[in-house]
């Protein structure tokens, strides 16, 4: 079972940042499915094109929870354009690497973020 996680992964898994739901988020991302064992929900708050807050809820393994925590940390203070450049490998690198079999968790984190931003952009264009 033990896929030999880095210290950074274990630290984020043990003390995940930004856990919880957000009231009236500006963007919501929902990715994954129960079959593969990972589901991520990511919420963002955006002001003047900058992500001011992010939160998550995740059903998944140690890597899924750690990548959720890390990606919510990374996006805070970033513009939408900057946030869109965050890839799964950026998240994995920030965590000191992930075991090969767990790289799909970082892909899920990237997808959750992209999905939340897309949701924000869609809502925003309608409001204009």
């Amino acid at each position, binding site marked *: *079972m033990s896929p030999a996680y880095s210290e950074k992964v274990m630290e984020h898994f043990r003390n*995940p940042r930004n856990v919880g739901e957000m009231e009236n988020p500006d963007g919501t991302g*929902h990715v994954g499915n129960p079959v593969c*064992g990972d589901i991520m929900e990511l919420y963002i708050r955006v002001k003047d094109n900058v992500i001011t807050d992010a939160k998550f809820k*995740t059903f*998944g*393994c*140690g890597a899924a929870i750690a990548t959720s925590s890390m990606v919510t940390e990374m996006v805070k203070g970033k513009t939408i354009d900057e946030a869109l450049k965050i890839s799964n490998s950026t998240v994995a690198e920030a965590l000191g690497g992930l075991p090969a079999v767990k790289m799909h968790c970082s892909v899920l984190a990237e997808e959750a973020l992209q999905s939340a931003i897309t949701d924000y952009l869609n809502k925003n264009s309608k409001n204009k």
Partner: protein
Amino acid sequence: MKRIYLDYAATTPTHPEVVQAMLPYFTDDFGNPSSIYSYGQEAKAAIKKARGNVAGLINARDEEIIFTSGGTEADNFALKGVVFANDNKGNHIITTTIEHHAVLETCKFLEKRGSTVTYLPVDSYGMVNPDDVKKAITNKTILISVMHANNEVGTIEPIAEIAKIAREAGVYFHTDAVQTAGHIPVDVNKLGVDLLSMSAHKLHGPKGVGALYVRKGVKITPFIHGGGQENGRRSGTENVPGIVGFGKAAELARASLDVEAGRLILLRDKLIKGLLESIDHTRLNGHPVKRSPNNVNISVDFIEGESMCLNLDFEGICASTGSACSSASLEPSHVLLALGLRHEQAHGSLRFTLGKWTTEEEINQVLEILPKIVTKLRAMSPLYTKHS
């Protein structure tokens, strides 16, 4: 922090008396059993004694025990050996969907080489229906392989009934008894099996040694060719310290089996009852009564098994999960899916297996710690929010 080891089905600590019994065979009595001088003859005598103890554990004759490198080799040997030796009679194997990978992967290998394999389903407790076995037999069937107790969910299969059906049909019957030998009574004659796999490290013996029981008269092809050790069926210089350790472990297990099984059933049931009562949305996997004395397997809804295991590990508790978020396929346990669990229930499974050094105090600690971990993880889970 004191460690609480509850993964005895994965492996067991080697009993100190077993280690003591093994030690001389690394140094003073290091001889090759095939050698004519006294060093060799002492090693040979030690193997003979060990063979007697292992045979005694399952009520077999000494010459029906073939030492192997472990349970996986014993399973490979049984299946390949019978298929290779009986290809003039047929090419059909009957097994189940919940076997250990050592059996399932061997079956897949044999399928590629021309065997046909029937994988029988199990009910929601993981139980094989003997009638299904009977119906699956054809005039090409040469081997039936059904495990004695399942390693993940602990369900004890109706081996004696199935073996009777096999015998009446003139088909060889193999059982993987890796989880039962030394833990519950295993008598090859009462069970009526022709082949039976065992592993030393599951019963407080060393790793790297196991045995295949082959009933006298069963046609089986040798597994490893060479110098003719193990009656020509499994060549290679014997693992003397390992075999001696296995013998000692078998002797100790036999002496304490009844008392130990009774003690573990009480602890097992206390843990099952406590977990199901203190955590909502949980279920027991496997049969409630026809169950290995040491196995507790539960599914906890809305959260994932590896996360639970890692959190338990922070508290010093060693457990395992049927979630396979770490496997390349991302598929959870084939056993839990065969029982009919939904994917998310299988991903949320947790297995505790108790053993010789498990105490009631340790069970109480798990009962105190796990509910807190579940609460913490559920607070993070999007599935739990949707439910509540």
